[in-house]
């Protein structure tokens, strides 16, 4: 009740400001992320703002308070459609947001999907601008196979049920790892949970399961986003196992860089959120202006390793995600 009331208020205020912006003739594009707390989304915002400055449009950046509040995000989409010329959306759920998006496009406003896919939507959305998450997973699998020398037992700690982007990464990883006959996946059924502390508990329990003497019966671990990579790293450190197992994660923060340097983390897949924000807004502008837009735009994924983290290009990418 309270939340929707304040949303209405936001919508009303935004309507007023929209009229003002309408008078100076600028396009307004709403960018709706999955959440606003992660640095990742702040990078998306930075990219969107970069495009806004470059092409002379207004960008409204507004996301749900919780990263699993689908209904709030649906409300946001509907409200923003009233006052914006286009919407750039990172859907929290592949299907829940579909109807809301279709309603908006039916009214003639373009919607660009970023970050995570929207199911069965290629017919009506403008473009899907994202990291190819499957490819991200494959990159991770190739890196893990490489450092394991093509043989060993590995475990995958998944993130949350129903999260499309991480599902794809995990699937991509599992697909690719099959190509290495010497590697056996011994666990891929555990989901870490929404917070880092939960992820840490699950990871600890998973490590306990594969404990063998002072070490582990597994040689490799893969995690699919920042939360579970962080939780796994803390769990490894807590059990004095960090560095004793090959570990490839996803995303980045200061702790990960530290772990890469110490040899506790052997690789992490980085997306390019700035580019995603930038290309998302650009695709929306192109659509409004009638320029041709690619239906799928890959923003790229990069494997960061202890060896390459000092390279100028990689360091610049890291900078977009770590303060």
């Amino acid at each position, binding site marked *: 009740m*309270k939340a929707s009331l304040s949303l209405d208020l936001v919508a009303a205020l935004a309507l007023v400001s929209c009229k003002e912006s309408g008078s100076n003739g600028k396009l307004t594009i709403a960018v709706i992320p999955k959440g*606003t*707390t*992660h*640095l990742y989304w*702040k990078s998306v915002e930075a990219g969107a703002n970069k495009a806004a400055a470059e092409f002379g449009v207004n960008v409204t950046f507004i996301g749900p*308070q*919780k990263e699993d509040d689908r209904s709030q995000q649906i409300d946001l989409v509907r409200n923003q459609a009233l006052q914006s010329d286009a919407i750039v959306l990172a859907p929290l759920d592949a299907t829940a947001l579909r109807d809301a998006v279709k309603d908006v496009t039916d009214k003639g406003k373009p919607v660009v999907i970023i970050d995570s896919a929207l199911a069965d939507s290629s017919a009506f959305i403008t473009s899907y601008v994202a990291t190819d998450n499957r490819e991200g997973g494959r990159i991770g699998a190739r890196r893990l196979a490489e450092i394991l020398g093509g043989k060993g037992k590995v475990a995958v700690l998944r993130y949350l*049920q129903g999260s499309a982007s991480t599902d794809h990464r995990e699937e991509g990883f599992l697909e690719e790892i099959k190509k290495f006959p010497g590697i056996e996946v011994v*666990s891929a*059924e*555990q*989901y870490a949970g*929404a*917070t*880092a*502390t939960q992820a*840490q*508990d*699950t990871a*600890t*329990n*998973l490590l*306990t*399961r594969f*404990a063998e003497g002072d070490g582990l019966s597994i040689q490799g671990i893969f995690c699919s986003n920042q939360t579970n990579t*962080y*939780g796994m790293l*803390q769990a490894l*450190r*807590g*059990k004095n196992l960090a560095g004793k197992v090959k570990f490839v994660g996803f995303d980045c*923060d*200061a*702790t990960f860089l*530290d772990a890469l340097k110490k040899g506790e983390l052997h690789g992490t897949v980085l997306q390019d959120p700035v580019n995603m924000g930038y290309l998302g807004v650009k695709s929306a502008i192109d659509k409004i202006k009638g320029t041709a837009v690619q239906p799928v735009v890959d923003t790229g994924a990069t494997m960061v390793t202890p060896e390459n983290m000092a390279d100028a290009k990689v360091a610049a990418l890291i900078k977009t995600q770590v*303060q």
Partner: protein
Amino acid sequence: MSIRSILTLLGPFLALVVVYCIFGAMKPAMFTSDVVLSVLTQTVIVATAAIGMTLIIISGGIDLSVGSIIAMASVAAATFVTKGYSPLIVFVCTIAFGAICGMINGSLTVGLRLLPFIVTLGTMQIFRGGAKVYAKGTPVNLPFDVTTYKAWMGGSGLPYGVWMMVALVLVMTLVLRLTRFGRYVFAVGSNENTATLCGVNVPKVKILVYTFGGAMAGLAAVMNMAKSSQGDPTTAMGMELDVIAAVVIGGASLSGGEGSVLGALIGALLMTTIRTGCVLNAIPTPWTEVITGAIIVVAVIIDRLRHRRAA
């Protein structure tokens, strides 16, 4: 301890033993010291918060904001650490910080005569939002060279946090049974009117209880920070339900006047056991949720049956 209160604890305790043994039969590793240690350690945060919640629930109240207090206080704790304060000051300040949050809950409930459910539903959002605003939405990481806190929730041997949890349970069991304050908490929860009639300062008792609950959440927040080496404003989301469930599994009545901290500890241990056992036995995560939920329902049914027989 009277026979009746032992019987009250016997149900949850048996459940814990049975569940533990079932998982153990499927996976003998459950009985290794490593796993026992890990179950104990993973229980610390919920159990610490549950000790405070037990008093609140016995007094006839509820605190839905406990997860948010933990998040906000863990951000505060991590901030204190990054500013270079000594561990003693970090502990004291974070506990005090939690206590103030609790006092706000208690004062609003008493002063405005509002239902604690509504008050803490509100403060749950306020505290959570406050934590995010202060931390600008991102976790506050501890400096990498700070290792003082690791021994509280990890390291070799029994972490300090486990000792602390056990000590708190013992102390609070005695406080509830053997002090005037403890008896007043029960009296207020059992029948507020009677407590008033008998000259108990009901508002004071209630505010104290919520303040204590907040302080315990503050302590849980330090443990949370020690565990994950960061103060995360999104941590402990939904943990209030785990905490309340632990207290209820432990034999407390949501209508007040009944409950024990030892029961709450057993309840918290039971939930950790299920989680650990499921991972160790490669049971997919959704089933963990189903099993935990089923245990809560069974606990409540047993509680009802026990009451019916007593009546």
